[in-house]
């Protein structure tokens, strides 16, 4: 990085919690008519917000890609009581807004907002003719929001002129209204659109396959001699830096959980390898910055060149928790199995964390529910039928039935799912304007994703039950139930036995149970239709449930005591001493993961000393390729050092920039709440 970027990096770190940002008393500013259509209210909030941002257009020294949030808080479209009233009529997921998606950046960059606006107006005329009131309302809102975005860019252009920044001013004269012509245009335009999406309330919005849709602009610049490769890297690095300017405002469950993800590599629409110069540049830029945003994902296959995997492993070595790998060989066919068109499946990206979605067209809700596998096992343990189970396979039948019952229960809660409109987000996707309907009313894909939490502890519990109840016959289901209910009080020898029972990732005996459990989970959701015309997708992700779900059950038969957390995502239980990453990969790729493509990575921690060996990067790359060959779906490699984490808990001031992978995202360790910190420390305990 050159001096300019170093200065920008320092400024960006300072801006994250910028004291100059104002907090606006929106209720005093915006009055709502209760009868106002939802789209109109969305547009009024958005336009008011962007008006405030336009008034505070700020360009800092050294910046070439502009836009920084000046206002802390977004207007709230509905009061709590209004929202509660709406929630009585339907299920609104999380904040009730549209999120976990990626808009159609390639088309918008190629068209420019003027063309989108014109298309919306043409469609509006047709809607009016058809007396389609809802269509007119949506398109009016979309046009108003597009105008607000253009006005914001205009305000920044005026500021650039005031500061004598001709180049920036000229660029803002082109984008976002007209098509991007250069690499720099394209980056600035994505910045503006991404910024605006956040202002609309569309959170966890990723930027998708940047190496694919930005490459034509870079190629043209390079071919015309307008840009050299090092200059392009500088632009890209600044672009990445811009994701960290406002990220202090984008708080999810924890600071850092903001879904600013992107996807690199993968294939083109015909299935040919499409990794390119920008794939590598993006890896390099992320490695230079060592920041938690944007979050890097890399699509691989068993054919991915080792060189690219080595460049990716360099990021792992730095301890960024990037990249997260997704295996096309499993994910693409898995998505096709679920009904995605092959061309769309080949274009997949990730939502906020790991959920596979289709950019530009998808309106999936990939995290709408979660099944706690250990809770399912716990319920079976308590069921009257369990006592009559003649053998372990009969017990597994009960587990299967319970998974189906759990699916029934969740499905019932999702009979009416509603969300608030997002006219701008809609206009930036393919389909809504043509249909004259907001994206919240449905996209090309409207599938629901279901996480599966605590997979390994559930498998381990079943393995312990098999051993103690059905093989050794030293316990009964009843005595195990009593033991977990009393947190193994007075049953320390039994606790030891449960912990010595087979564990997934350590003992082969657990693997058939894992395969059976995962396929039963996939079966329990297969063939169900959701209320939005889509289907359900099973996955192996945990999100934050690995901290919440364990609190809903007492201890478990694997020897996990009350209150102890599950592993994050798809990983061995905490405290299980495995031989190493290889047997973990081997064991966890045994189940048929093509049936679990809602996503959720196999998560493996490596001690950071591994990377002292110069050969480690190459060997890690080889291991990643082997993971692909074995049919894994998604892989997350983290480097971690328990001593460092403990020191960071004690002296946060010394470890401000210490990055850890939390569940589907990397965060700064010192910014996490203690339960999350403690879980990561436990993950580190079994290493070396």
């Amino acid at each position, binding site marked *: 990085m050159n001096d300019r970027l170093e200065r920008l990096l320092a400024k960006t770190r300072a801006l994250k919690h910028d004291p100059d940002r104002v907090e606006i008393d929106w209720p005093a500013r915006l009055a709502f008519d209760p009868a106002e259509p939802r789209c109109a209210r969305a547009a009024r909030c958005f336009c008011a917000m962007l008006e405030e941002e336009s008034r505070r257009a700020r360009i800092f020294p050294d910046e070439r890609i502009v836009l920084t949030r000046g206002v802390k808080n977004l207007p709230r479209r509905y009061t709590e009581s209004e929202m509660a009233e709406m929630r009585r009529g339907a299920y609104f997921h999380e904040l009730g807004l549209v999120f976990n998606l990626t808009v159609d950046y390639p088309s918008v960059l190629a068209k420019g907002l003027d063309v989108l606006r014109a298309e919306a107006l043409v469609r509006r005329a047709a809607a009016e003719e058809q007396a389609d009131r809802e269509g007119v309302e949506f398109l009016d809102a979309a046009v108003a929001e597009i105008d607000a975005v253009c006005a914001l860019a205009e305000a920044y252009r005026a500021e650039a002129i005031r500061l004598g920044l001709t180049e920036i001013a000229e660029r803002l004269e082109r984008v976002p209204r007209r098509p991007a012509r250069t690499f720099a245009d394209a980056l600035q335009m994505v910045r503006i659109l991404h910024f605006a999406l956040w202002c609309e309330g569309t959170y966890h919005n990723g930027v998708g396959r940047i190496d694919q849709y930005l490459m034509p602009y870079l190629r043209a610049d390079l071919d015309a001699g307008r840009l050299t490769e090092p200059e392009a890297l500088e632009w890209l690095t600044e672009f990445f830096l811009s994701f960290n300017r406002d990220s202090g405002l984008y708080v999810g469950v924890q600071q850092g959980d903001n879904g600013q993800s992107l996807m690199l590599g993968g294939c083109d629409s015909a299935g040919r390898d499409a990794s390119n110069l920008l794939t590598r540049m993006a890896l390099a830029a992320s490695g230079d910055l060592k920041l938690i945003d944007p979050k890097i994902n890399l699509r691989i296959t068993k054919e991915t060149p*080792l060189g690219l995997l080595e460049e990716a492993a360099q990021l792992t070595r730095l301890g960024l928790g990037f990249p997260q790998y997704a295996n096309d060989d499993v994910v693409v066919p898995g998505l096709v199995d679920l009904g995605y068109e092959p061309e769309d499946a080949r274009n997949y990206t990730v939502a906020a964390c790991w959920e596979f979605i289709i950019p530009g067209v998808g309106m999936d809700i990939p995290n709408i529910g979660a099944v706690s596998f250990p809770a399912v096992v716990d319920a079976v343990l308590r069921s009257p039928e369990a006592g009559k189970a003649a053998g372990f396979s009969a017990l597994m039948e009960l587990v299967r039935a319970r998974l189906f019952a759990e699916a029934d229960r969740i499905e019932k809660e999702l009979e009416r799912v509603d969300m608030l409109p997002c006219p701008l987000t809609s206009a930036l996707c393919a389909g809504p304007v043509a249909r004259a309907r907001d994206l919240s009313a449905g996209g090309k894909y409207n599938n629901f994703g279901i996480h599966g939490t605590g997979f390994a502890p559930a498998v381990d519990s079943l393995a312990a039950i098999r051993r103690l109840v059905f093989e050794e016959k030293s316990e009964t289901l009843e005595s195990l139930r009593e033991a977990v209910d009393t947190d*193994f009080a007075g049953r*320390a*020898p039994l*606790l*030891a*036995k449960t*912990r*010595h029972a087979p564990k997934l990732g350590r003992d082969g005996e657990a693997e058939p149970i894992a395969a059976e459990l995962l396929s039963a989970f996939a079966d329990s959701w297969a063939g169900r239709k959701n209320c939005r015309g889509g289907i359900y997708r099973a996955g192996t992700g945990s999100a934050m449930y690995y901290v919440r779900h364990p609190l809903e059950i007492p201890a478990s038969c694997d*020897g996990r005591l009350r209150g102890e957390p599950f592993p994050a995502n798809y990983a061995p239980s905490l*405290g299980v*001493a495995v*031989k*190493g*990453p*290889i*047997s973990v990969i*081997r064991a966890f790729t045994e189940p048929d993961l093509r049936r679990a493509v809602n996503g959720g990575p196999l998560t493996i921690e490596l001690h950071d000393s*591994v990377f*002292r*060996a*110069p*050969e*480690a990067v*190459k*060997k890690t*790359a*080889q*291991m990643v*390729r*082997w993971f692909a*060959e074995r049919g894994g779906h998604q892989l997350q490699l983290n480097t971690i050092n328990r001593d460092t984490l403990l020191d960071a808990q004690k002296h946060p001031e010394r470890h401000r920039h210490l990055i850890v992978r939390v569940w589907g995202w990397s965060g700064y360790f010192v910014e996490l709440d203690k339960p999350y910190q403690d879980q990561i420390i436990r993950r580190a305990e079994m290493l070396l």
Partner: protein
Amino acid sequence: MTAGLLFEIREFSLYDGPGIRTTFFLKGCPLRCLWCHNPEGLSPEPELLYSETVCACCGNCEAVCRRTPSGGQTPRTCSGSEVCGACAETCPSGARRVCGFRLEPADAVRSVLETRDLFEPAEPDGERGGVTFSGGEPLLQTAFVTETAGLLRREGIHTAVETCGYAPEADWRKLIGAVDLVMLDLKHPDSAAHERWTGVPNEPILRNFEILSRSGKEYIVRIPVIPTVNDSPETIEAYARLLNGAPGLTKVELLPYHAGSGGKYTLLGRKPPAVFPEREIPDLFSDRIPIAEKIVP
């Protein structure tokens, strides 16, 4: 078939030879190097390890310990035939565990076959990984090592051994004939100093070094560079006289010393026998021995 006594199998070991390797750590060693960081590998018998920091003081072990039939505190450690493992079986926290397990050659081979794809070179000119025998000292279990290596060779899996070279000639010849790569530790070129720091003289080792260099086999010499023990200019000169021009020697690897690596002694109820100052490996090593390179475990 001769079962081996191992104390660990480690996957994805990056310092034990070329490529991606799985390392079998064999229990028992004839040397007592004062800087040893694998003290659980020294005794040729199973031992009980105990971690006071992990122990939850539940008292389970007291009920089952055969050495304290009338109750009372379970001994911290025990070894050899005293080790019954009952306390470890009943220990819920994992504070007590038996170090040392028997493994038949066929089972050892089976345990790596499923991941053998990873041993293959990733690129046409890439390094082949495989299995490394380490310890402890593999030469104390030559029969197990040669049998296992023979089976691995039949499967086409590359084998290596990390050894101190202290063994009767017949065992040595068997060992070096059985594996593809020998990594020989030379702790000190001077016999009296060798004996002082490791407990044994180095003549048998140097004799075996001689045999190795005349065997036509390629091999690596490793030097654990211990400050004040073997990093003086005179010692480096002596190493250079010994190693420069030795036939078959492809590389000399210099391993640094870490003062913090004595952490495992407490598990055995012992203290590290010595602590040495930490300092950089002198550049003189690579100046005087052109094929020497530092590796950083």
